[in-house]
């Protein structure tokens, strides 16, 4: 009874309380002109009450609550939203014109410079945007973000890299602080291996490539780590379903020396046993870390030393096993250890010189534990890359010169068996491959007049295949095999076994049609002396890298592109259309059953041919305002032709053109970010693309008690189309207080409508038939929650 009385009392008081009213008065103005905005919509508590401002920009409400949320909207202006405590008689609201705001997203080119720069196909997605985009399992993923841009695709979720404008994954040069990364993913493509928190910016060149870059034929992804804060200690970190992260910026000597360290580590075997019965045998963990020491020596000199380390371990059979070594399981372990040191010398306000020393080491191992034994047989591989380069920049009137030289030394261990105590396995080595790549470049960006700019670049590239080596000479026009070897030439250490090289023009121009639109074009030639040789859909971490030599010619690619660019409505919108044609000679394809593991003569399994890729990319982006985002459509083809001779073993598909594994003619990508003030935003990703090609049987045979598919033409069919919608809700600093410590949450749903996209279709014998199956990587909505914090001392 006592409780009921109390309850009644409370209710009565509550009603009495709610009957009290409060006043809310205010004015809405333009933030620059300070002119009142007439007819702006003012709404209370998301539409509970609404009104328009009068001819003086004023509004008045009488409200029954003490705290309300007020929202003000006006066409062309950024909406205003705030929680206010009443009564309030003089709320001055100043709205910002959308076009005066900073760009929320930058998708193609530096802010507002897209139209003017004489460079095409430069995609600069800001790291901030990548962070806002939904990602699988809450791991911010640069490579997945890039695939939302036109011209960048992959073979599917488990792809060990990206395909840029019809190129293979190994035709891209991925640089982190100038050091190349040979394996850019963790967990066989599920996550990018870049330390996302420590990255400030990156450039992706898929069209015109500046002359200072060489050695790869498709895209250049140049990623820079942030410079650490020189005066304040900062720390940030996070936790997701997959990993823990931490990053710190530590000023060591204020304004002089500072250090940045970032690290990420996964939870052991985090997901797979639960996701699928198939993956029960899978064990996985990974880690990566980066550090950068920045030293401001004086006004003219700075020195920065960076290092990057990445580690992966996983046990799986889904990447195949080594048939000729008997083991109880297959384990992959690989690590990257990179280092770069950069000295920047400012000669004058018009000239500077940058000298960089780079070391990159990639070491993939296959571990094979033996049955009933503690011994583990190891197959070691190694890529050792050392580079020295220097670039001189001179700004002189209408010219902008860049002169560079660089030298790379490659040393590749293609494979070596370390048998341990094994009684079965022999210690086998494959000869170390050595090569030297030299480059000299010159580039001048010239402002011809107020409308026309031209960028003239020329690179000379020279490659030396170095001894010690034993080179087989094969009979001409015959399939390369042990029988067609005419002689074997031995080269000693320091001897040049073969050399290749030539000039590589890099030309770009832009012409302003008017203030807001331009046309641009370009032509590029690039040579590539180092490639992955792997007879699989996408290279695996232990795929072999091979230097060019007498029998494997360097790939040479030429790209011509033309585009039209336009800014609309005060740079709020940007529209572009680009078309390209790319031809690459000496691309690599494989004879049936090619196996490169410890193979001393990989050329006997390789066929070289021509790739032609072409496409048109249409992009519309909205860069400012409450809604930002982009939508693009790409039509692109990538066709290979391999015809070394008339025999079946010298050609693929009878020498006819066939679609490359990653040929996806139609692609639509859309990203939408709904900015809801400073405390949260929503974002959506949608992606659609034609299914990638695969080979389907044209007959079946019964052989050896099983029904086998019988194939004729490669890539004669396509997987079902791929599409997916993702959602992210980012909440920033939810307690809304401006403390030194701020926490953010990111809630994401990957594959919102649970499309079971096929990664591959394969056939397995079943009774009297060969049954088709499809493999899906993420066949359900993947929910995840990630937490991040920032601490500024």
């Amino acid at each position: 009874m006592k409780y009921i009385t109390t309850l009644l009392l409370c209710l009565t008081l509550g009603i009495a309380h709610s009957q009290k009213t409060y006043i809310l008065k205010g004015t809405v103005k333009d933030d620059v002109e300070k002119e009142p905005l007439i007819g702006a919509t003012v709404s209370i508590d998301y539409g509970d009450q609404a009104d328009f401002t009068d001819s003086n920009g004023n509004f008045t409400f009488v409200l029954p609550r003490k705290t309300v949320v007020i929202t003000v909207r006006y066409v062309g202006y950024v909406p205003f939203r705030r929680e206010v405590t009443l009564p309030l008689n003089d709320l001055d609201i100043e709205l910002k014109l959308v076009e005066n705001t900073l760009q929320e997203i930058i998708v193609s080119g530096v802010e507002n410079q897209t139209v003017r720069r004489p460079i095409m196909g430069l995609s600069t997605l800001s790291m901030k945007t990548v962070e806002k985009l939904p990602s699988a399992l809450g791991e911010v993923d640069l490579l997945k973000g890039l695939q939302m841009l036109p011209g960048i695709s992959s073979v599917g979720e488990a792809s060990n890299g990206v395909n840029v404008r019809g190129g293979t994954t190994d035709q891209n040069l991925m640089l982190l602080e100038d050091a190349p990364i040979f394996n850019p993913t963790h967990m066989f493509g599920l996550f990018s291996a870049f330390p996302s928190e420590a990255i400030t910016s990156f450039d992706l060149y898929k069209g015109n490539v500046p002359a200072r870059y060489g050695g790869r034929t498709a895209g250049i992804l140049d990623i820079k780590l942030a410079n650490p804060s020189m005066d304040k200690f900062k720390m940030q970190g996070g936790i997701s379903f997959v990993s823990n992260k931490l990053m710190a910026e530590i000023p060591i000597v204020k304004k002089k020396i500072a250090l940045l360290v970032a690290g990420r580590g996964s939870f052991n075997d985090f997901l797979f046993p639960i996701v699928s019965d198939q993956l029960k045998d899978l064990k996985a963990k990974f880690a990566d870390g980066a550090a950068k020491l920045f030293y401001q020596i004086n006004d003219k000199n700075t020195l920065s030393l960076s290092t990057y380390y990445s580690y992966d371990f996983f046990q799986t059979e889904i990447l195949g096993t080594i048939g000729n070594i008997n083991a109880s399981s297959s384990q992959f372990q690989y690590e990257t250890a990179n280092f770069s040191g950069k000295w920047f010398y400012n000669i004058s306000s018009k000239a500077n010189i940058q000298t960089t020393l780079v070391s990159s080491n990639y070491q993939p191992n296959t571990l094979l534990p033996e049955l009933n034994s503690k011994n583990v047989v190891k197959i070691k591989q190694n890529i050792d890359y050392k580079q020295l380069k220097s670039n001189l920049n001179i700004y002189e009137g209408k010219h902008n010169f860049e002169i560079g030289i660089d030298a790379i030394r490659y040393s590749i261990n293609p494979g070596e068996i370390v048998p341990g105590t094994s009684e079965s396995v022999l210690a086998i080595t494959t000869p170390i491959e050595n090569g030297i790549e030299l480059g000299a470049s010159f580039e001048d960006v010239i402002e011809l007049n107020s409308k026309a700019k031209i960028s003239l670049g020329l690179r000379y590239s020279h490659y030396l295949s170095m001894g010690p080596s034993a080179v087989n000479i094969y009979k001409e026009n015959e399939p390369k095999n042990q029988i067609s070897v005419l002689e074997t030439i031995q080269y000693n250490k320091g001897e040049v076994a073969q050399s290749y090289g030539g000039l590589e023009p890099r030309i770009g121009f832009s012409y302003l049609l008017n203030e807001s639109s331009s046309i641009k074009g370009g032509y590029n030639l690039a040579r590539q002396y180092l490639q992955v040789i792997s007879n699989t859909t996408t290279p695996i971490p232990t795929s072999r890298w091979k230097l060019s030599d007498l029998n494997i010619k360097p790939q040479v690619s030429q790209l011509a592109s033309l585009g039209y660019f336009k800014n609309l409505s005060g740079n709020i919108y940007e529209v572009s259309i680009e078309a390209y044609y790319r031809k690459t000679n000496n691309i690599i394809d494989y004879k049936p059953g090619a196996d490169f593991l410890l193979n001393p003569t990989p050329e006997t399994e390789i066929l070289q041919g021509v790739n032609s890729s072409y496409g048109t990319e249409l992009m519309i982006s909205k860069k400012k305002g409450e809604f930002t985002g982009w939508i693009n459509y790409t039509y692109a083809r990538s066709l290979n032709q391999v015809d070394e001779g008339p025999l079946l073993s010298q050609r693929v598909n009878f020498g006819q053109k066939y679609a490359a594994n990653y040929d996806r003619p139609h692609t639509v990508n859309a990203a939408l970010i709904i900015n809801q003030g400073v405390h949260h935003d929503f974002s959506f990703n949608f992606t659609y693309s034609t299914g990638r090609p695969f080979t389907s049987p044209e007959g079946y045979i019964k052989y050896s008690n099983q029904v086998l598919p019988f194939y004729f033409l490669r890539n004669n069919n396509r997987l079902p189309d791929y599409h997916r919608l993702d959602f992210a809700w980012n909440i920033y600093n939810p307690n809304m207080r401006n403390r030194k410590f701020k926490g953010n949450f990111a809630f994401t749903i990957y594959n919102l409508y649970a499309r079971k996209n096929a990664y591959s279709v394969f056939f397995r014998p079943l009774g009297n038939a060969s049954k088709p199956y499809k493999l899906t990587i993420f066949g359900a909505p993947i929910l995840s929650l990630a937490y991040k914090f920032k601490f500024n001392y």
Partner: protein
Amino acid sequence: MSLKILSLLKRAFLAIMLTAISCVEPFDKAFPASETIYIVDGRLTDNTSSNYVKLTLSKPVSTSFPTYVPVSGATVKVIVNGETDVSLTETSSGIYKFPSEFKGEVGSSYQLVFTLANGLLFESNLEKMNPASKINKVYHAFDERAIKLPEETLPGQYVYIDTKDEESTIDFYMWDWVLYEQQTYCQTCDRALYYNDASTGPLGECRPLSRDRDVIYDYRCDALCWEIISASKINVMNDQFSNGREIIGRQVAEIPVYQKVGALIEIRQYAINNNVYDYLRLVESQGQNTGGLADTPPATLAGNINSKDDIKQAIGGYFIVAAVDKQLYWLDKQDIPGTLPAIGLLGGRKVNPEPVNPADTSRPPLAPCINSDTRTVNQPEGWFTARQN
């Protein structure tokens, strides 16, 4: 947020995902055959028992899978060392057998030549017989996940061998096996009852039930009977990484738990040549090792048979010439956990004997064990001795 809560949330989400994600599922699309393919499955060893040539035609029909028609009436012979002809005789439709005492000899070369009833001539490459090394040891181990099917895994027993590789030669190995499991049920009738008396032939017959019911009955064998199960997986290896060494722990068979009583397995180790090895490796990568994240692109399986009369004719299969070493091994089932159910020998279906009717003790009748490719009434060679060991 504390780590504990996050870890709890993590588990909850993962539990949801467990039910929602499936990695491999049947792909609902037909890939009908469009090519007519001659299939040659031939084998000649240095043992009289396992030599044959099987000719089949894979013919596209309107449905998704082709029909397999035995190729009868062909004239089949093997030319030994380019000199002597050995004729094969058709023992059953499309199956051609060597003369009973004929076997291959190490060091000799053999070429298969056959002419179809329509006059089309086919020839194999010249195949030389290499010596086989001996299997030194056979052993097995139970594994909870031994049988890996696209959509599930089953418990089973792995069978391993040890052998010594010959140092002076480059060796290519192939293994297969035959399993003999004792069969107690010899006849199955679907919506029918089995009769085996004077009114039927010696094999008996299934007669439809008087009232149609969805039921399948199984009938016991009237004598000892063995189910013959053959390897359907390709298993090949070369000695490039173990030349001259002991090859230890090569897995040669995965046997599901058919029954909880012991069985006999015959392991065969063949000495194949480089070309057979390359061919079978392709078969392996296209038929078995598919469905991974990094499959190799399929290619035409070009064997060692061709037809000069029609070079465009697609021909599948291989005429394999290889010396063989056979080992019998008693696969006891004592390491199989007692609680684990056996899948039986009826294709996964549980045995359902016809219920005994006390009023009619003449039923259910027993059924004869009929010799076939998959069943034998003859006690397998070594059944007794292997069991003693």
